[in-house]
Structure formats: C-alpha cells, structure tokens
C-alpha cells in the first residue's frame, strides 16, 4: 500500500506488526497521522469483529487511535493459529478502511543511539563489523603526541574521498603538528581547531551518525580516550562532466545539463539565480540509500504553503532507497493513477531556473540529472525553453505545431478508423475512393489494422531505444523499411495506414516531454478501440472523458489545465502564443501570486525620440 496523496486531509493509520519468532507475543506500532484537532473516527465495522480473541488487541487499537500518537503495545499472551488468522483479518479490515499497513521494517538499527566507546580499539572493531569488512573501507592508524602515545584513527571509504586532500591536509599536518598536545582532549581540540585543514569539520558523539558520514565520503577521526569523533568533509569522486542534455536538446539556449552530483546541480542553479533568496533545503530520503534530495525555490516568489507541502510530502516518504527522481515523483504526485504526469521533470538548469522565477519549486535528487518541478501544468509539458529564447513569432509558431502534434499523436489513428468504418461520407469522393482502393484486399477491419500497425510501431520504437548504437541502424532499416514495405506488399496493411502510423509516430516525437508523450501513446490505443466501436461518437466520448479527467487533476494545489480550465484570461499570454517578453509583465497568477509583477511596464523597445527638428545633427 503506498502512501495516500493527501494525508493531511484524511487521517491515516499506520500499523506495523511484529510477530515474535516464537509466536508468543505480538508488537504493534500504531501511528495515526491527521490534521491537528480532527480526531479520526474509528469505523464501526471494527466492533463487529470476533469477540473472543480479538478483543484485547481491538481495544488497544481503538484506544491507541484516539491518542493520535505513536504507541507500542505488547500483548503477553501465547499466540496460536487462531490469533494469526485474526491478525490477518484485522490487517485486511484495516486496509479496507482508513489505514495502510506496512510490513515491519527490514533495517536493523543495532547502532541506534549507541554512544561511542572511549577505547579506539572497541570503536574500530565496531566500525569494521558495521561495514562487514568491506574492501573499500580504509582505517589508518596514526600515533601522535609526545612519543606518539595517542592513537588517532582515520576512517574513510576509498573512492569517495579526495586522497590528496587526506594525505596533505590531514595525515601530513597531523604528523607534523600534533606532537605538542599533552592530553588526548587537548589533542582532540588541536585537531579540531587548528590542525585539520579542511573547510567543513563536524563533531559527533553518535556512532550511527558517524557511520553515515563515513559512508557519504567524509573522513572520520577518532582519538583514543576521547568519546567524540570528528568528521571532515573530504568528499571527492569521479563524476561526469557537465554536458549538453541528451533528452532535451535545443538549438538556442545554454548547453549545460544537470549531472548526477547534487552539489554540481545546485551550483548550476546558483549560477543562474545569483541572489541569496534562492533557497536550497536538503534532506535525506531512503532508509538505506540515504539519497540527498534538495528542494530549491526562491523565497518570496514561491508560496510558502506549497513549499511546506513539498517538505511534508518528502518527509512522508519511507522507502529503503531512491535511485532516481522518478521514484520520488511517484511517491509525491497528486494523481498516481493518471496516465499524465503532474510533475514536470527536466535536465535543463535553464528550465528549472525559469520555473523558479515563476514561483515554482524544484526538487533535485542526487544520482540523477533529472530535476522535478512542481506545481506543473499541462501547458508546461508542451513548452520548451526555446519558446522563450527565440523571437515571439517563431516561439509561438513552434508551440502551435507542438499542440497540433500532441493532438495528432492522440487522435490521428482513431480518426482514420472512424472515417473509414463509420463516416465514409465525410471524405471527399476522390479521397475515399483512393482509400477504398488501397484497402482493397486488406483482410482485417480498419480497427484491427490500426492496432496491428500501432503495436508494430511501438515494438520498433522500444527495440530502437534499447539497442546498442552499433546495431541500431540495422534494426531501423529492417523495421522501418522491410517490415513496413513488406506488410504493405503482403496486403496485411494498406499504404495509407502506414502513412497514418508514421505521421502519428513523428507527431508523438514532437512532444517535448517524454513522459506526457507516453500518456498520449497509451491513450491512443483506447481511442482507436473507441473509434472502432462507436466512430466519431466514441472519439468525442473519449475526448470528453479525457477532458474531464485532465480538468480534475491538480498539481500541488494548482489546476493541471490552468489556464484553459479554469480559464484565466491573463494567462493566455503564455498559452498558444507567447507574447513578447516586454509584454510578459506578470508571473503565472496561480503560482506566482506572492509577487505577481515580474518586470517594468515600459519594456517595449522603440526608436529614441528626438525633440526639435534639428535634433538629428
């Protein structure tokens, strides 16, 4: 069961069940989340639960729910088969009603809150055990102080650290300068305040925290007889250089794309928004992967409530690992079952910066070049940065083509099917005779023909995307030429169908954001089926349903179809046509309302005005 999209609205009950291996006792962690002041009502159905065994647990469950806080209960009672059945039934009931029941967490937190030992050897043994003797863990022992009587332990993970930094700024300096310290405490203070020549040094007494830092590329320093450790930021690893984004190439505009390292990505944003109001808040998501995730927004432009909502949704994520921002997207999006994404992803810093200036919020994830932008609206998915960089007419024309091609990729095959099987009167005579002539001898109904070719095309595309570059062209030739041509000659499909499918395919590639193009691609099959069974009526019904669905979507509180539905006339400046920059006075009303006016009102360029008839001299 995934987390609900709007936890803040309806109360949610999380129950974690642990059954003791011996079967003798059960622990239940119950957690209720709801808005303050609104206590969840316990469904009356629970009262109909079997009385005999369920009672104690039921009572606990109900009473705990009322307290609205995490609770832990132990039932000291021998557990039999009946109890397990009861437990299963209870779980089902909980699922049906208000709560989500999760499996017990797999993470062993044996070091939670465990204080450091004073003895370096004990700590070392513990660290080694925690890492399970991983080969990339390096533990270096140094002896400092008069006569080398204090042991200093350097702990780091090879490959995550800058080795030059460690040898020059840590080892060399410690060996040279730490001899004057008299006591271990003094040596510790010297290290912290004077000797370690690394910009970021933190102090911790908690072993778990320490281990996380070491696993993240920090270098840990332990001193014998001191129950505190220092972690120095020595992170440095091989990373991809900044390249042109592969999925969103433009003709005009910056060629920089995000990379996999979060810090580089935030720096790319900082370089475009040189103002202290650019806020970058960082958190870790993933109980094991500890992926760094950053929220970026411009304070004063972004609505603080939306920022808080983003923080809440991110905080609610409870998964073991995050590999890509797509996982975060799925865990925080508003409409998990919609074919359309309600969060925009991009690997272009200029696109993110543009969104920030509109009052939107970006979520950057370590390990992927794809950033997320919220709130996202439908029109953003059909927009490219070039629309704003090219002059207004070109930008508007390109955008019109994109809208057209999105609609084409959604409906063209279904229009073909509808016209050829239901509305033969709608085409000019010469054209319908031509189509009829081409369909002569095709054994399938038009709808089957369309589905067949569409499926073939999807297979070709999928094969083409995954293939190594060396065999790619060969497959394209076989697929495109041989199969298409041969299917036509074999009389399986009509030539016009090939034209329709090819046009549709090209049109779907003209949609700039892949994730929404996929939505249209999937819906295309439904539209073809509707067209094949009901004709234009089916297409119109499908488009109606689609329209209703799209207008019902929200992305972080903003209607997805804004400014079309609800119609916001002032926002038409950036809908089908983009008005020139000098007329783009305001930010989008629904996201940028905190600071609506974005520029001066007299930006329209004009020739200078001279006064007097001889002024040109």
């Amino acid at each position, binding site marked *: 069961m995934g987390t609900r999209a709007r936890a803040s609205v309806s109360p949610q009950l999380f129950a974690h069940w642990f059954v003791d291996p011996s079967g003798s006792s059960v622990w239940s962690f119950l957690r209720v989340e709801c808005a303050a002041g609104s206590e969840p009502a316990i469904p009356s159905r629970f009262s109909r639960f079997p009385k005999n065994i369920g009672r104690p647990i039921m009572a606990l469950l109900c009473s705990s729910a009322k307290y609205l806080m995490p609770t832990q209960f132990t039932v000291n009672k021998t557990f039999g088969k009946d109890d397990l059945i009861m437990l299963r039934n209870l779980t089902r009931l909980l699922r049906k009603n208000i709560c989500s029941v999760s499996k017990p967490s797999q993470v062993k937190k044996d070091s939670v809150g465990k204080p450091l030992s004073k003895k370096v050897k004990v700590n070392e043994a513990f660290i080694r055990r925690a890492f399970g003797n991983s080969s990339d863990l390096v533990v270096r022992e140094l002896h400092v102080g008069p006569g080398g009587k204090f042991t200093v332990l350097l702990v780091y993970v090879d490959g995550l650290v800058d080795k030059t930094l460690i040898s020059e700024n840590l080892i060399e300096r410690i060996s040279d300068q730490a001899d004057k310290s008299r006591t271990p405490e003094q040596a510790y203070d010297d290290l912290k305040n004077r000797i370690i020549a690394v910009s970021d040094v933190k102090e911790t007494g908690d072993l778990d925290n320490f281990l996380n830092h070491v696993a993240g590329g920090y270098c840990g320093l332990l001193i014998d007889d001191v129950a505190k450790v220092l972690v120095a930021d020595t992170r440095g690893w091989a990373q991809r250089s900044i390249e042109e984004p592969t999925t969103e190439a433009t003709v005009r505009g910056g060629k920089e794309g995000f990379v996999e390292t979060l810090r580089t990505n935030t720096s790319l944003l900082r370089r475009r928004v040189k103002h202290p109001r650019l806020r970058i808040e960082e958190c870790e998501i993933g109980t094991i992967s500890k992926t760094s995730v950053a929220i970026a927004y411009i304070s004063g432009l972004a609505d603080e409530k939306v920022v808080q909502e983003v923080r809440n949704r991110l905080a609610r994520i409870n998964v073991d690992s995050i590999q890509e921002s797509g996982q975060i997207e799925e865990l925080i999006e508003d409409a998990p079952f919609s074919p359309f994404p309600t969060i925009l992803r991009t690997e272009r810093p200029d696109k993110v910066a543009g969104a920030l200036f509109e009052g939107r919020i970006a979520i950057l994830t370590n390990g992927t070049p794809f950033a997320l932008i919220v709130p996202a609206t439908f029109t953003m998915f059909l927009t490219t940065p070039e629309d704003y960089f090219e002059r207004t007419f070109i930008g508007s024309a390109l955008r019109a083509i994109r809208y057209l091609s999105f609609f084409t990729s959604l409906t063209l095959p279904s229009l073909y099917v509808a016209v050829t099987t239901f509305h033969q*009167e709608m085409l000019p005579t010469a054209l319908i005779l*031509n189509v009829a002539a081409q369909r002569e001898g095709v054994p399938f109904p038009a709808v089957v023909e369309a589905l067949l070719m569409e499926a073939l095309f999807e297979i070709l595309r999928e094969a083409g995307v995954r293939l190594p570059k060396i065999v790619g062209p060969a497959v394209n030739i076989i697929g495109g030429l041989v199969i298409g041509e041969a299917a036509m000659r074999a009389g399986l499909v009509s030539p016009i169908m090939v034209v329709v499918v090819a046009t549709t395919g090209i049109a779907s590639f003209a949609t700039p954001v892949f994730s929404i193009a996929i939505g249209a691609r999937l819906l295309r099959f439904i539209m073809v089926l509707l067209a094949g069974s009901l004709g234009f009526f089916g297409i119109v019904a499908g488009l*109606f349903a689609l329209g209703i669905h799209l207008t019902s979507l929200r992305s972080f509180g903003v209607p997805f179809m804004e400014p079309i539905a609800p119609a*916001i006339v002032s926002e038409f400046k950036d809908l089908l046509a983009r008005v020139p920059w000098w007329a783009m006075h305001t930010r989008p009303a629904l996201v940028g309302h905190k600071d609506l006016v974005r520029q001066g009102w007299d930006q329209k360029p004009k020739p200078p005005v001279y006064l007097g008839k001889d002024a040109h001299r």
Partner: protein
Amino acid sequence: MPPKSLSKFINFIFITAFLASTLTGCWNRRELDTLGFVTALGVDRTGEDKIEITVHIAKPFAIARATEGSVSPEKSFWVVSSTGSTAFEAIRNLLLQSPRRPFYAHNRFIVIGEECARTGVKEILDLFARDGEARRLARVEVVKGATAKDFMQQVEFELERLPSEGGQGISRSVQEGLSAEPVDCTLNSFLQWLETEGVEPIAVRIDMVPKNPAAPSNVGHLLREQVKISSKHGGAAVFKGDKLVGWLDEKEMRGVNWVTGKVRSGILVIEQPNEKGKLVSLEILRAKSKLQPEVKNGEVLVTLRIDAEANLGEMQGTLDLVKYPQAWTEMERKMVEAIETEVMAAISKAKELNSDIFGFGAALNRRHPEEWDSLKDRWDLEFPRIDVKLEINAKLRRMGLVTRSSEPR
C-alpha cells in the same frame, strides 16, 4: 448571441464546439470494402408502372491500378439497373445484383430521363429528400430525348475516369465560365423551388453527343480512347410543378441567370463599332440584378435592374481605342443591347412555357404579399402577361494588354 466578457465568450465557444461535436451523425459500422460507392444515379419509369434505377458504382481496385501507373483496360465503374414499384424498392433491389452494399452519400447526380420527367418527379425525389444517407447536394439533371438508363450506360467523358467526375467538371466550368446552366441546381434547391409559391423549378439539361458515330459498343471493357458517346451539360429543363414542360438552350439559360443575378462569367459577342462585319468579344466580369415587382392597375410590372461589368477580350477589326475613345461608350451601349436580347429571349421562352422560373411571383410575394394573395390563384394567367421593364447598366473596364490589334502593313 455571444456574451460580453471575454472569458464568458471563450466558455461559450468551447461549449458550442463541444455540443457541435456530439452531432456526429449516424454510426452504422460498415467496413470500407463492403461498400460500393454510388457516384451517379439515373431514374426512369418503365412501361409497366415501375421505376427503374440505374447507378454507377465506382470500382476502387480499377482506379487503384490506374494510379499505380499501368494502363488499365478495365472500366473504373460498374453500371447496374434494377426495378421496383417505388424508388426505394428499386434501390433495395440493387442488392440482388451488387456484392457490395451501394452507398449513396457520395452520389453526385440524380439523372432523370425525359419521359420520366414529363410524368412528374415528386414521387421519386421524396426518397432522396427523406433518406439520411443520400445528400441533398446531388445535382438534378434531365436527359433530353433519352432515358436516364441510356445515358448512364453509354456516356463517358474523356479526361475523367468516372463519368460523375466528368459531369461535375463540365458543370463547374459551364457555371463559372459560361453561366449557361442553373447555378447550384442541387436536389435541395430543386425541392425548395418546388415548394415555394411563385417559383418553378429548373434542372440542368443534358444532351447526349455522339463522339464516334461508328457503332457504340456496349462491351464492358471499354478503352478510354474509345469514348463513343459523351454529353453536353448546359441549358435547362423547365418544370411546371414537378413535370417537365420544355427546354432552354444555353443562351436562354444565361438570360435566366442575368435575371436572377447569377451570371459569373461568359462571353458576349457584339458588333464592332466603326467597322462592319467585325465582331468584338466581351468577357463578363460580374453582374448583379435587382427585381422590383409592383402591381399597377391590376397589371404586374417587373422592373429589372441589371448591373454588369465586362472586359474587352477580343476585337476582330482594327480600332485604336486611344484615338477613338467614343467607341468605348458605343461598345457599352451594344453590350446593353446584347444582354437585353438574352434576357428577353429567356423571358419570352418562359412565358411561352408558362413557367415562372425566375421567381417573379415569389418576389411579388415578398414585396407585396396582399397583392400576391389576390393574384396567386390566377398566376398562370398573369405570368404570360407580365410587363418587364429592363434597366441595364453596363460597364466596360479594361481593354487588355494592347490598345489596338496588330495589323498587317
């Protein structure tokens, strides 16, 4: 009425568009290859009180083969007839012979044989008006001196693969270039004329023209180079009620078009001023007309004002128009005369047939309804006595690229 505020207006547009898109028509599922596209349809009455329907059904495969480049000896259409007591029955009986269901939405022509037209077409046309599949845009034409079946079976056109395409091409150019046939003479207009008081319907007149008198053959594999019989579209079939009463030739038909203001183009030939026996062609540019009927002393008087413009298109003699500008007004005067001749010819022919094809009665009804009420019962008697007063205003616009003809010296 669109609302005033912009966003309401946009909502209005959206709602209208959505509502319109629900009017998507009937939804019978029929695969393309189960349909036979009827491109032209002929109607006759046979001896034993039956109605005979003859249709052209396009053969898509024959057309396809031709577009692929190889010369196809096959006719690209199939002619088939069937009979029944009513038109609908006759049409349904086609199913006895046709492997593909005839589909009438692309029918371009309803061709009526002369005999049939003389006995009345009301019973036949009702089906095409009532049925949703056949379009009211089909043109109504009457074959002079033959049955529709003969026409359908024999006539073909050079340059076009399907006779319906050929007929349509000719009709279009006759309307646009000659103004010698009724404009927009569709089933829809025909039925409107039929239904309106004070107008009689007209239909396009077709004459069959033998191209190669050496034995027309009915062999199915007619090669395109061997078109035996073609047809001429132009002039009009004049109806009185739903019965054919007579014919107009091309000139007379243009007279009708002058009256109704539907002349688009055409050539007016006049005598050249200053030079005997030489002619001048004027190309009509545009024309409009205004009818003003009134009743004076119980007599109907129609004032007809025609404004016409033309270009000088051709001159047989040599006349330097720069030197003799007065020839210009002379030609305009002759143009007026020429138009007057055509109009009067049409009017006298209509009076002779006693069929008010111009809609004088309807115009009177619009302008003076009470007088029309007293006249309409004896309109048959009044119409031939109508006095038509012509006010023709002709303008010559341009003389072309030269000011005088080239002259041998």
